[in-house]
């Protein structure tokens, strides 16, 4: 029975997932990271509802994910691998080599950029890495286009036997759009492997040949891109030469096109859209350039297309100082850039849409900065509080995850990249040891991040006799990116059970001799264990001490995390020390100016009761429902 078409208000990542399935993708691997995290779950959801064969896996990191997808593509299946842009750094080793080796089935690598940055450590531009790896890249401007591009990317990948990148920016991934689709026919392929050592295990001698082959593919793909009018091209040309034209791709294309139409200027300022910035379809751009006196290049986040345009005198962009080198190209900023370019060529400026007064006004309002915080009841808060209490003078190296917000509790000093809590702790330890100093160092890393990049660093630290305390904040989930499972529980991406790999086994396997598991909600016990650990670190025959602070995430496991919610209140005996607000930093505790003491917001409070152990004055008490009495906590 044939089914009718469906319409859904899909997240951009859902649109990408849909495009992958429409392209016959059978294998998707990923490591979660904003803004890419929803692609895999959406693909799984749609595949289930459409009855399509799809293998999905949360791999332990992006490099692993790419190797897995690459091998699937070598068997002739169509495969994809999804990650955030900094994840591509981790997978780059794999990508660089895969470009030389080529594939059999299509392989699309989806690397999601985060101009802003909103939820990343850099604003790096995936297109530059595509150029470095010699891999074609597609740059969608909206969810619908991302869906179409991923299908074309899969075709191009398979036709030319080369991995292809789709680079959606956060405004594509986390845009939502109504999309309609017809039932997707299953087209399963069987895995095959044809031995070919000169390709799949090429030695340097053969690599030279593969490199030559790769360059040839890129040349032919460039020619194809020059006629790929679905994604590249401009509106029909006006007669003669215009004073200003725009070359744009990705989200800035969508923004500038909307802007010109709103202002009624679309006929006056032609736009050449390039949806495939590498290999750069130069012939299209040269033709467009010949019709414009000046060309403004709008792209995110670096100068990529701009660099490919040879006539520097004609081209405005980042190199000429017209476009900022950092920050997201939000509509307001593009309007400012365009306005300046219009004035510079002697055309009418844009109609002002906003009143500059509003920005002065907002300065005068002095709005408080609302920084992100750990949730009420978050076990990380308890752990950080205990760490600060046990070793206040330590250097606190930390890592990527919710717990980076331990910053707010003064228990995070560094955050470099995935796994660097451990490796930077090693480096600090060795640098101080050289001077004969044993500085207390406490590294904090989440469970998912530890599985991702922690083991190599820990093994290295043990082997080289670095001395520090490592606290693995084990909330049994990848929380920041939306509650994906970790290898620790053994639940897999499709919900089925795999084989759990407990953290403690991995830690012991790395050669660690001191390992304790503590519930961070028990602050005195964690403080005691931290001090014991530090004693072990200091012993001549000691080493690295690892403490697993294990308590489930309050968002992911509401019931298990706090089985018995406590009702709390703050007594009049509160001495206004504000420790619970400033040092413990629980969002559910506020300072009631009128009453002159701290107060608990019953809506925000998770009822964990950890603050009972924190108040030095025992002014936070539990309200006993039945007896109606207030029993001070004995702690």
């Amino acid at each position, binding site marked *: 029975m044939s089914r009718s078409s469906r319409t859904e208000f899909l997240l951009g990542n859902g649109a990408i997932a849909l495009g992958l399935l429409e392209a016959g993708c059978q294998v998707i691997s990923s490591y979660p990271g904003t803004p890419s995290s929803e692609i895999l779950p959406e693909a799984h959801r749609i595949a289930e509802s459409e009855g399509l064969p799809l293998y999905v896996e949360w791999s332990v990191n992006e490099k692993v994910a790419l190797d897995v997808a690459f091998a699937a593509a070598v068997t002739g299946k169509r495969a994809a691998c999804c990650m955030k842009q900094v994840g591509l750094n981790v997978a780059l080793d794999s990508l660089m080599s895969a470009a030389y080796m080529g594939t059999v089935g299509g392989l699309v690598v989806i690397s999601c950029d985060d101009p802003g940055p*909103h939820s990343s450590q850099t604003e790096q531009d995936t297109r530059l890495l595509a150029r470095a790896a010699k891999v074609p890249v597609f740059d969608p401007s909206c969810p619908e286009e991302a869906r179409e591009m991923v299908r074309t990317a899969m075709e191009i990948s398979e036709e030319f036997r080369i991995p292809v990148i789709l680079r959606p920016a956060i405004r594509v991934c*986390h845009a939502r759009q*109504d999309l309609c689709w017809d039932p997707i026919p299953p087209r399963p392929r069987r895995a095959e492997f044809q031995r070919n050592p000169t390709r799949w295990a090429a030695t340097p001698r053969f690599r030279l040949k593969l490199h030559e082959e790769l360059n040839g593919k890129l040349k032919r793909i460039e020619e194809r891109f020059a006629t790929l009018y679905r994604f590249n091209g401009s509106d029909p040309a006006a007669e003669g030469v215009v004073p200003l034209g725009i070359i744009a791709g990705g989200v800035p294309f969508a923004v500038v096109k909307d802007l010109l139409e*709103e202002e009624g200027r679309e006929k006056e300022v032609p736009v050449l859209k390039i949806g495939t910035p590498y290999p750069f379809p130069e012939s299209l751009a040269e033709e467009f350039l010949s019709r414009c006196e000046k060309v403004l290049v709008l792209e995110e986040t670096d100068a990529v297309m701009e660099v490919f345009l040879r006539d520097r005198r004609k081209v405005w962009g980042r190199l000429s100082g017209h476009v900022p080198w950092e920050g997201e190209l939000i509509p307001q900023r593009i309007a400012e850039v365009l306005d300046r370019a219009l004035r510079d060529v002697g055309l009418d400026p844009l109609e002002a849409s906003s009143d500059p007064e509003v920005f002065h006004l907002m300065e005068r309002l002095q709005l408080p900065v609302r920084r992100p915080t750990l949730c009420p009841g978050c076990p990380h808060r308890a752990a950080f509080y205990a760490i600060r209490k046990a070793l206040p003078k330590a250097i606190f190296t930390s890592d990527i995850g919710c717990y980076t917000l331990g910053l707010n509790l003064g228990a995070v000093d560094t955050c470099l990249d995935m796994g660097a809590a451990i490796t930077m702790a090693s480096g600090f330890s060795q640098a101080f040891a050289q001077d004969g100093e044993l500085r207390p160092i406490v590294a904090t890393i989440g469970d998912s991040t530890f599985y991702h990049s922690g083991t190599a660093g820990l093994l290295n630290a043990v082997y080289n006799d670095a001395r520090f305390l490592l606290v693995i904040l084990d909330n049994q989930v990848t929380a920041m990116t939306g509650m994906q499972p970790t290898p620790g529980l053994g639940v897999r991406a499709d919900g089925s059970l795999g084989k759990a790999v407990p953290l403690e086994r991995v830690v012991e396997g790395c050669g660690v001799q001191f390992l304790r598991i503590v519930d961070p909600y028990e602050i005195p016990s964690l403080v005691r264990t931290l001090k014991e650990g530090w004693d072990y670190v200091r012993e001549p025959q000691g080493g690295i001490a690892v403490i697993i602070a294990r308590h489930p995430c309050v968002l992911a496991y509401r019931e298990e995390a706090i089985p018995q919610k406590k009702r709390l209140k703050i007594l009049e005996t509160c001495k206004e020390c504000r420790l619970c607000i400033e040092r413990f930093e629980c969002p559910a505790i506020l300072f009631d100016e009128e009453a002159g003491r701290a107060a608990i917001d019953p809506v925000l409070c998770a009822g964990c009761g950890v603050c009972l152990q924190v108040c030095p004055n025992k002014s936070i008490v539990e309200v006993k429902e039945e007896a109606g009495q207030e029993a001070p906590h004995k702690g």
Partner: protein
Amino acid sequence: MEPINIILSGLGGQGILFMTGLLARAALEKGFSVLGAETHGMAQRGGSVISHLRIGRARSSLVRAGRAHFLLSLDEVEAYRNLSYLGFGSTCYVDAPDSPSLFSGLDRFLRKRGIVFRFFPARRVALEMGAPRAANLALLGYFAGFEKEPVGYGELRTAMEVLFQGPSRERSLQIFEAGYEGALRSRNKI
């Protein structure tokens, strides 16, 4: 049709994404195209959160400064943080315990641009009805009591009936209704 631009703001965890989803679904039911932009990741942990919703034909999901028709904010401070989005003659629906007095500079600016602020104690209303986290629904009901375009009471209620299928459905609808009635009451006062 030029798109209708809506900004939704508040703090992470208040249900901004859900409110955006309801408005979008209501607009889709009415036959509009819809494009939205959401905040995920780090900022969701209690920080400032903003959603953009463009109803009608649009290519880019972000609203340009000075071009929003409506602002719905679950937090008063976050409403002021997004003042620069507000277009001439726009209307803001803001959750605040009682109508705060705006300081004179702000008041003058709003009058100059013909911007109307409407305050409603959405959180208090939801709290009194036993679901403090449903302030978003109360505010949406309040919005529906004033506006028919791009979407109004009927479409929003239908969208809620579709999206709520669990045991919380009845209470959620009641909270929405309470917001709606609150709007009708304050309209009668005007």
